[in-house]
């Protein structure tokens, strides 16, 4: 049995997605900007994609910018907005548990003269609205809060934060990185006062190398790359038609089955959490209540380096992540998120993330738990003395 529990790193493509993309690449390969029929064919896929996204998010399709993925969308949102609104103010707010695509972009903006407040989180990995309220001042132009944390799955109070921000100052732009949450929760930018929303294709069984930024019409953004002025000049470059169409197809399938799937993921998570609790010296780092996403469980296995457990599970065809895949594999990396929720060094070094998808089955989880019951005592025997 092969068990893939690293769905927060990336997911398997839906077959319908791969087939649609193959057809576009081999047959309807035109440039959507071309004036001839081939261009028109390609453009019809863009219309299809915009329509799917606009309908499901209840937004206007003019407010979409397709990008090469979540990282680029986050960069465009933060850098583009900060520079476009620098005359209004130079203070930005984010959290201590953001993905590097936001965290590092904020670090860059600090070098460029912006001031950034990083909100702390509770043991559950959730920010407090009181902290947010205190952080906002007359100079604040943008708040960026992730929807679902990529390492422990904690959910942030997005709707409440949106309301609070707009009550204090409707001019403040609210950005939400929804790469991990999109497709697993209903997100309606208008009702939640979200001005900018980042989404990636490959976390929802779509292709890699494509994503989008929802940008509310009135928000001022400067482009961060320049060229042929596609997409209202916000993102130049020939549109990735097969990628965009594939992502749209994945979104369509996700939304058709969302309620049923969330229910299944919740069952999987409760089952797996119960199993983990039965393992000695194991602590679950993810919130198990409604504050946690249904597809991510992070746990620490005292005394076992996460890489060792990862490879031991790999030998049994079970694939998990040590920390988050984006930073895993770098020497001496310490997860900022795990630090922010107050874990000690030993807990951080032994943390493993299990992330599920709609393809995950109960038997796979029971096999995984059984395997861990078998191998963990042996691994514990051999620790650095």
């Amino acid at each position, binding site marked *: 049995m092969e068990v893939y529990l690293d769905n927060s790193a990336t997911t398997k493509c839906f077959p319908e997605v791969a087939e649609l993309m193959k057809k576009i690449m081999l047959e309807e390969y035109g440039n959507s900007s071309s004036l001839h029929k081939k261009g028109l064919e390609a453009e019809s896929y863009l219309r299809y994609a915009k329509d799917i996204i606009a309908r499901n998010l209840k937004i206007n399709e003019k407010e979409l910018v397709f990008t090469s993925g979540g990282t680029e969308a986050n960069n465009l949102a933060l850098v583009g907005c900060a520079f476009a609104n620098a005359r209004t103010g130079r203070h930005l707010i984010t959290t201590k548990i953001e993905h590097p695509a936001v965290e590092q972009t904020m670090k860059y903006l600090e070098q460029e003269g912006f001031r950034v407040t990083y909100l702390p989180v509770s043991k559950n990995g959730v920010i407090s609205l009181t902290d947010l309220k205190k952080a906002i001042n007359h100079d604040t132009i943008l708040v960026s809060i992730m929807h679902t944390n990529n390492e422990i799955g904690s959910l942030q109070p997005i709707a409440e934060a949106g309301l609070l921000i707009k009550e204090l100052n409707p001019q403040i732009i609210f950005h939400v990185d929804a790469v991990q949450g999109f497709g697993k929760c209903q997100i309606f930018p208008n009702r939640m006062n979200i001005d900018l929303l980042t989404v990636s294709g490959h976390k929802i069984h779509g292709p890699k190398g494509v994503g989008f930024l929802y940008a509310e019409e009135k928000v001022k953004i400067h482009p961060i790359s320049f060229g042929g002025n596609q997409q209202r000049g916000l993102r130049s470059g020939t549109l990735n038609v097969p990628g965009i169409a594939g992502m749209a197809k994945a979104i369509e399938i996700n939304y058709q089955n969302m309620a049923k799937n969330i229910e299944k993921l919740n069952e999987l998570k409760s089952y797996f959490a119960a199993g983990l609790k039965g393992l000695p010296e194991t602590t679950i780092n993810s919130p198990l209540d409604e504050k946690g996403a249904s597809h991510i469980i992070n746990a620490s296995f005292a005394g076992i*380096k996460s*890489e*060792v*457990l*990862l*490879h*031991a*599970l*790999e*030998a049994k065809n079970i694939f998990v992540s040590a920390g988050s895949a984006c930073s895993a*594999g*770098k*020497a001496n990396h310490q997860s900022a998120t795990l630090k922010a929720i107050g874990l000690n060094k030993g807990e951080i070094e032994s943390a493993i993330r299990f992330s599920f998808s709609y393809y995950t089955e109960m038997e796979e989880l029971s096999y995984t738990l059984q395997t861990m019951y078998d191998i963990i005592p042996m*691994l514990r025997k*051999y*620790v*650095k*003395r």
Partner: protein
Amino acid sequence: MDNYYQSFLIKYAEIGIKGKNRHLFEEALVRQIKFALKKVAGSFSVRRTSGRIYVDAQTDFDYDDTVMALKSVFGIAGICPVVSMADEGFSELSNFVVKFLNDVYHPDAKKPLSFKVAARRSRKDYPLDSMELNAKLGAVILESFPSMRVDVHKPDIMLHVEIREKINLYSEIIPGPGGMPVGTNGKAMLLLSGGIDSPVAGYMIAKRGVKIDAVYFHAPPYTSERAKQKVIDLARIISRYTGPIYLNIINFTDIQLYIYDQCPHEELTIIMRRYMMRIAEQIANQTECLGLITGESIGQVASQTLKSLAATNEATSLPVYRPLIGFDKMEIVSLAGQIGTYETSIQPYEDCCTIFVAKHPVTKPNPKRILRSETRLAERIEGLVENAVSGRELVIVRELEET
């Protein structure tokens, strides 16, 4: 592609002094050159005539790639791009020399260049001797290019004129790696890790004409597939110089865990290394390798003190070659940079199990104590070693990856 030079004269240093075996070395060098040129676009003939090797392009070829390929062939001291002409008398030769200088150096008044003519006459029936040729051609050059002048000590252009069946002209000698052609000195087994040192050690021994096999000790789940891939990548870089490498990958986990269970922790590293030596020796004996190669250098880590080296050495009866023994880390790093292995070596995939390294390993192991510790392994170790050797994975690493 239109290349000015269609031939290369290959200079070799040490082979020249190899007495009666000389032809063996030359043949090996020709073989290695042909092998190296396989990966270059274009076809070439490699010929050996009276103590010289020439590489002649038969078709269009990529000049830079060709030079790069030749620069990785051990045994080559210098690569000279040459142009040649048939002997049609001195005045034709003079015209040819002037044209050559014009084409290659474009001398004019703004760039005063100094030169020296170094003529050699291996055909003694040529009417002028070397000294006369030097003088007469020098005069022709001075007359044709008033901006040029003679400098016999440090000329900008050293113009070599060789009178053979044909006349060769060349003025550039691109240094080769030196050493001796791979395969002229037997074969040895390299203990290859993912670190900086062992690839350099393999390179250095191969440079002396030795063919290289390698062994890598893998300890899943304590080391990752990426660490193994890194070792394969390193072997691939070395194979640029050595030709295909037979890489033996040993699963070392069970042996390591058994040692961990049975032996004192401060001796773990030494005992582990002794078993690595024993396993490498067994494979070496099966594959006709005449020695082991390691990247050890005195004092670099606890297991490389003289006492530790002696303790490790004792485990094998094969000679162990340690070409880096007297090198500083910085010297090794600089060599790794030149060879091209450094960037790969420093990729941070955890290797050979830091959890098995004691906090305070012995630096002065006592041979008797080590032997006594090893007796505690008596029950299972032979079987484990046998399994490790017979269950090894063999990867044949070539420079060009087949897809």
